[in-house]
């Protein structure tokens, strides 16, 4: 076979199982590029003030950060074609410093673009059906979802068609572009919640009612930040044709009633808490009377068309095998931790760990992106997914090909066998990049990696989620980490508050603070102390999280604060 031909082998056309832009999408995205180019020009020419431009650029994902602008690009519900990933790599090399950072909300961030070049970056993104629309600012953000959508055996229904429906409805929504605060929606279709939907402004869960009809459970008012709250059920069953009209009703109530006098009290969670769930629900349902039979009603033909974009790829007729049998310890560990079950016999979903110990969590280089694009074409139907935990995923890999894939990933530093373990940390960019941060995150991640470099110990500890944020904004989701780490500023010094017992899945809960914050040099030792208590007290097969839930904070706290401080 000629080199280059293999890209198409078994893969049909590129990005078969994803939404493709039609003329409307293309037109809107290119009109947006033209609009933003003009806004940037007016700002650079002094026709727009800093403040006026700020409101405009934020709605296009452009922050002014510590060193340079930061551009956040949307990856709708985490789905990328190999062609798109290759374009992201190319942009990283030519406009940035050769890397990008994947976030917990399935976006990618560039930390070093030049303001005047941003319109050109947007034009290149538009060429591959991508954009930065509504990735920041007080508007409806990128809709996120389960990275195992369509392939996980426990799924009730594929959430992606519904995500695309929401993406379109929310894009340039004329009424909801100047909300009191940002608004995040996550959609899941499986009992296991891999999208942290309960800590979103709105969580949409695909469910079936007693008659077997498909619909949605709608949650609202979840969120992290300064006031972490788990979302509450607004409606336990919404017939599927009403999804958009119901969301529109929720958003209208929020837009009119949400607080605008205090940025820290402006999220929908605060409105919901102050009204109470009953009153909030009443207002939404009253508003829904006006919206439910509007042009937002989704008919069966529309649903069928959207589902058509997410048809399963051309799977081969295979049987399950034991690819790890007889292979090296290293491969077996990787296969166990970095691959997961697939609903089609003979296939696995494969995680690409972006948590190599000496690399900032979620960071990936231009050449790694290009390599992964090639590998996706060879092994996984030319598609790559971004996970909520800042890793990547090949959703559809033949079990028998996992060994070949692993060998290549291993050479590229992309096979760290740590998915779901202590070092698979979620981490915000922290003080190194973000102008909001109080403290560093990346360097703490490094210290933790240095302290916990024994894989046998990590594997013995089992499932453990460490989540770290450099400030109260909680981009690193520390409240819902089994162990959460929050950077705080103490008279100019970086200190860290530790919480335990948080979770983001279907059993979502907020962590409890164990006590006074600790110095940067003590963070890793503090975690070691927490884990010591766990190892001593755990029951067979009990996760750290469950031990904390059973015992409470007390024994952990006593150990941490009784122990002499690390030198």
């Amino acid at each position, binding site marked *: 076979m000629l080199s280059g031909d293999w890209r198409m082998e078994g893969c049909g056309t590129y990005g078969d199982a994803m939404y493709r832009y*039609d003329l*409307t999408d293309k*037109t*809107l995205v290119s*009109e*947006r590029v033209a*609009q933003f180019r003009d*806004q940037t020009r007016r700002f650079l020419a002094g026709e727009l003030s800093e*403040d*006026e431009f700020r*409101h*405009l650029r934020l709605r296009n994902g452009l922050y002014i950060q510590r060193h340079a602008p930061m551009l956040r690009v949307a990856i709708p519900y985490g789905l990328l074609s190999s062609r798109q990933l290759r374009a992201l790599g190319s942009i990283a090399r030519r406009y940035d410093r050769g890397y990008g950072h994947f976030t917990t909300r399935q976006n990618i961030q560039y930390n070093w673009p030049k303001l005047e070049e941003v319109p050109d970056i947007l034009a290149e993104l538009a060429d591959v059906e991508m954009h930065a629309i509504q990735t920041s600012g*007080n508007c409806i953000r990128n809709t996120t979802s389960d990275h195992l959508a369509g392939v996980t055996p426990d799924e009730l229904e594929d959430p992606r068609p519904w995500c*695309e*429906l929401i993406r*379109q*409805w929310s*894009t*340039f*929504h*004329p*009424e*909801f*572009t*100047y*909300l*009191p605060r940002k608004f995040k929606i996550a959609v899941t279709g499986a009992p296991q919640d891999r999208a942290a939907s309960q800590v979103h402004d709105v969580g949409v869960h695909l469910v079936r009612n007693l008659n077997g009809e498909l619909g949605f459970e709608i949650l609202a008012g979840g969120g992290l930040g300064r006031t972490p709250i788990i979302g509450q059920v607004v409606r336990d069953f919404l017939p599927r044709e009403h999804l*958009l009209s119901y969301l529109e009703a929720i958003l*209208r109530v929020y*837009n*009119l009633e949400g607080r*605008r006098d205090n940025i820290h009290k402006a999220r929908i969670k605060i409105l919901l808490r102050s009204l109470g769930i009953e009153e909030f629900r009443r207002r939404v349902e009253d508003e829904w009377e*006006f919206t439910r039979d*509007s*042009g*937002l009603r*989704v008919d069966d*033909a*529309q649903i069928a*068309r*959207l589902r058509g974009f997410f048809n399963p790829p051309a799977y081969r007729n295979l049987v399950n095998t034991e690819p790890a049998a007889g292979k090296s310890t290293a491969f077996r560990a990787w296969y166990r931790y970095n691959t997961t079950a697939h609903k089609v016999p003979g296939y696995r979903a494969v995680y690409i760990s972006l948590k190599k110990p000496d690399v900032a969590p979620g960071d990936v280089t231009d050449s790694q992106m290009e390599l992964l694009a090639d590998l996706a074409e060879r092994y996984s139907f030319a598609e790559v997914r971004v996970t909520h935990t800042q890793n990547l995923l090949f959703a559809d890999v033949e079990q028998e090909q996992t060994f070949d894939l692993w060998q290549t990933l291993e050479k590229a530093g992309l096979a760290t066998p740590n998915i779901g373990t202590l070092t698979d940390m979620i981490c915000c960019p922290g003080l190194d990049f973000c102008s909001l941060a109080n403290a560093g995150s990346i360097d703490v991640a490094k210290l933790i990696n240095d302290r916990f470099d024994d894989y046998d110990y990590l594997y013995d500890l089992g499932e453990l989620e460490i989540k770290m944020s450099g400030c109260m904004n909680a981009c690193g989701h520390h409240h819902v980490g089994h162990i959460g780490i929050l950077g705080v500023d103490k008279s100019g010094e970086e200190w860290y508050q530790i919480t335990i017992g948080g979770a983001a899945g279907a059993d979502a809960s907020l962590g409890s603070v164990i006590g006074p914050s600790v110095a940067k040099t003590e963070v890793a030792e503090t975690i070691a102390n927490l884990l010591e208590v766990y190892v001593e007290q755990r029951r067979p097969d009990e996760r750290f999280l469950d031990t904390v839930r059973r015992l409470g904070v007390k024994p952990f706290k006593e150990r941490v604060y009784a122990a002499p401080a690390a030198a």
Partner: protein
Amino acid sequence: MPRRLLRDGRIVDDDWSYLAESADGAAALILTVAEWQTERAAWMARGARLGVVLQPADKVELLAPEISRLDLIAAQFSGPSEGRGYSQARVLREQWQFGGELRATGFVRRDQLFFMARCGFNSFELADTDLEAAAAALSTFSQAYQPSNDGGLPFKLQHGGPNIPANA
């Protein structure tokens, strides 16, 4: 000099005055909600055209009882992040079937006009001096993803093929 504004896509002289700026008891007056509420009967007896300006926190329902007597409703935008007026406009147009002039006032910039117009505003008191550039901003986008209030802009809601006009 009369105030210039954008109405129905054209640059025109404003033929309305706010009560506070009207020394000569102009024929067409825009009142605050408080002014309107205190002497409603007297204002209506006057027989001239009447308008009311809503502040962002004002409930649209305040105007419901005599909405048919109003020829103009204005929504005040208090700053660059104010967004309640967008919902006020849609509620006025869609739930109260207000058919008169719906005006955006206050912090109104050309970059917001497309969205404002889609919510039902048809006139704009702009801070921008370049009203022609502002008028052009009304056609920033040629299509939309969601139905709204702009009668005619082609929209699609996740169906392919030709776009269907919103009022078809």
